[in-house]
């Protein structure tokens, strides 16, 4: 196999074994952040080095890789990561969610439901859900050990007291399998319900912060809320201007300097599929 002079999937075997052991422990302790030895990658932290290291540890020659950034397959980060693995692992890539065995993502979960056997790899900037409330790692480790999550509920309560509702709209904290509080990475809270009891395996990699965590398939993932202020997701008055979808996460795009705007699906694969289906219908 020609992998451009690199070891298969870029990382050396010793590093991959370390990552693999970390991933297995992460799966065994759902939602718990397992420390790992972050390696220098040929791109800076903040470009998805955590997700890339997870993907490099799991990927094999028969995998089909899809990479999305904010839902889109055609953005810089997604294109360069896809090319990275095409070059260093010689794997096939795709933009179609249903054809991928591994989907690496920044900030979205695909609209199409994932199926058993697929692996979703999230790029995570800050893995610790309590970090902005308690800056000391020594303290947050204790809080996780004791399941002491009161300060997060206080924060959500303060949102309600100030804004009349929970104002957090992305990176919305969840509790996994009734135990660990977990940060889902900066996905919109619109995507949170998709994490719950998902048939796919979800892996999270934070390179700069050196943490890997996981949600196994068919695992309970609950977005935090209160009985009188239940968790709810965003909704839009519009539907997608390109495909007409009323059930997808929409991006607002400014189209002129007079304030004209349109709303389109953030998931480019979902949107293109729907557009193709619509033009096929129109042709018939």
């Amino acid at each position, binding site marked *: 196999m020609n992998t451009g002079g690199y070891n298969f999937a870029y990382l050396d*075997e010793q590093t991959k*074994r370390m990552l693999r052991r970390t991933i297995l422990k992460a*799966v065994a*302790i759902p939602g718990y952040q397992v420390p790992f030895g972050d390696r220098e990658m040929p791109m800076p932290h903040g470009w998805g080095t955590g997700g890339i290291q997870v993907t490099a540890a799991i990927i094999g*020659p028969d995998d089909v890789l899809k990479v999305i950034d904010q839902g889109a397959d055609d953005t810089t980060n997604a294109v360069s990561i896809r090319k990275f693995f095409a070059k260093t692992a010689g794997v096939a890539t795709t933009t179609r969610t249903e054809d991928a065995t591994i989907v690496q993502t920044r900030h979205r979960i695909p609209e199409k439901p994932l199926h058993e056997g697929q692996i979703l790899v999230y790029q995570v900037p800050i893995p610790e859900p309590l970090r902005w409330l308690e800056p000391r790692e020594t303290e947050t480790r204790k809080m996780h050990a004791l399941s002491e999550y009161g300060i997060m509920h206080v924060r959500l309560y303060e949102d309600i007291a100030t804004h009349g509702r929970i104002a957090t709209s992305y990176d919305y904290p969840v509790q996994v399998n009734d135990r660990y509080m977990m940060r889902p990475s900066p996905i919109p809270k619109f995507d949170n319900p998709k994490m719950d009891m998902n048939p796919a395996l979800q892996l999270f990699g934070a390179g700069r912060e050196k943490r890997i965590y996981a949600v*196994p398939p068919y695992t309970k993932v609950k977005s935090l809320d209160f009985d009188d202020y239940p968790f709810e997701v965003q909704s839009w008055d519009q539907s997608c201007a390109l495909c007409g979808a009323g059930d997808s996460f929409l991006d607002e795009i400014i189209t002129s300097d007079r304030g004209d705007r349109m709303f389109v699906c953030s998931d480019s694969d979902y949107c293109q599929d729907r557009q193709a289906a619509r033009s096929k219908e129109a042709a018939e």
Partner: protein
Amino acid sequence: MNQITLQNLAPGFQDPQLDSQLVFRTALQALARPGQIQTLDRLPEPPAPLGAAAAALALALCDLETPVALSEDLRGATFDYLAFHTGAPLAATVGAASFVLVGNGNHLPDLSAIDFGDAEDPERAATLIIQVEHLEAGPGQRLRGPGISGHIDVRVDGIADAFWDALKLNRKRFPLGFDTFLVTGRSVLGLPRTVILDAEEA
């Protein structure tokens, strides 16, 4: 450090790089879907009584960072084999091991002496690789928990009843606790610490 006898040293993976990856993915799938028996495609040829499946997992996951404890029947040839192919040191005690290999599920080491991790580092806990006689989907043990949609039944032959008692205790310790792979032939069954055993027979 013991001298490794190079005579009669059995071969490891045909392709260490890609075989390790495939074996790891099978192990990952086994742990992510407890109770579903997975099949290993790439197997080394270890010296008996170490089986091919246990050897494959050890070769894919162990190295100089992971002290390994071996059950009595696996000392000797097995240790030479693992030491040569992985570089893993022999753990001084069972409690100091990252991986505990058990040659025969009917003769378990003291499962209470294993490292369960601690409250702030539950990931430090050991992984057990236990050889059993037979694995089969169907009535036997009923499992629930993360990775299982509803429940799943699996039959395991050739493991001491004490293992199932230890697994129940293990669950009570969560998030601490050991993670287990049961192996036989080409088959692997993952039992992460999250597994809940249903008391009633399926």
